[in-house]
């Protein structure tokens, strides 16, 4: 996933409607693109993209782009990357520091656990009258 070339149209729309930073956070947390970014991109890549976005000239998407990466980091289980990101954005504006603090405070590690589906019994017992009982056949000679 090329983090510098993603479709931010929904994020830009949400940002333009945001009266408060918490509204922006809630909407980005529910954005499928941000969720996919969190699943497919590494924390290192997200932080690198965040730093590039902070250094870049603000274009149409420039305003919301750092928040997209921050929320993607919040969706990942490793809180240390999010804390690094919070330090990086702190001096860039009141919303940046507020959102970063809110995300760090509300982060909880997500555990992914694989649960195997129940298997079949190796030797099912059959009783008279059950379908399995009909599997045996007596041949008279």
């Amino acid at each position, binding site marked *: 996933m090329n983090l510098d070339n993603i479709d931010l149209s929904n994020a830009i729309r949400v940002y*333009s409607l945001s*009266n408060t930073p918490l*509204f922006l956070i809630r909407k980005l947390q529910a954005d499928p693109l941000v969720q996919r970014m969190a699943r497919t991109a590494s924390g290192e890549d997200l932080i690198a993209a965040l730093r590039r976005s902070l250094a870049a000239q*603000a274009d149409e998407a420039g305003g919301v782009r750092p928040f997209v990466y921050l929320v993607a980091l919040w969706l990942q289980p490793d809180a240390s990357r999010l804390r690094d990101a919070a330090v990086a954005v702190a001096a860039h504006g009141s919303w940046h520091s507020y959102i970063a603090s809110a995300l760090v405070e509300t982060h909880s590690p997500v555990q992914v656990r694989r649960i195997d589906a129940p298997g079949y019994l190796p030797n099912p017992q059959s009783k008279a009258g059950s379908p399995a009982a009909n599997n045996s056949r007596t041949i008279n000679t």
Partner: protein
Amino acid sequence: MVILLLRSELQLHTRCENQVENEISREPVRAGDELHSQDRKREYPQATHRPVAPSRKYNCHGLTFASRRTWIWKPQEIQKILRDDEYEEVPVQEVLPGDIVIYDQQGDAEHSGIVMSRGPVPIILSKWGTAHEVVHRVNDCPYDSMRITYYRIKS
């Protein structure tokens, strides 16, 4: 000659003389802001879209509580205003023009507006983020209208 910073905080007090944190941005609107406003007009054709340009100087709370002068965005500041200015909740069936409405999500006042008229569905004047001002039915806007509360100033 007064030199104004691109971003600053206005002196804005509640009736109890507590400062309300706010931030006015005098930066010019971005190229996309006008386009977003046009998009909202297409998305909400039933609403009346006031001919006010997009602005980062004030938001919905700035319209509702600060005469369109600044942007108020911290949840606790809205609570401070409601408390210090003695707003009281009003049941929806008793809502009158001049009351205000708060759209709340998990303690965050994500939107607010001023009631313009009553009826089966109250009509609200509000501002949508950086976009323009809109007169709309209380439930015909991009904000969650499932948890809305009406308030009236007591005296």
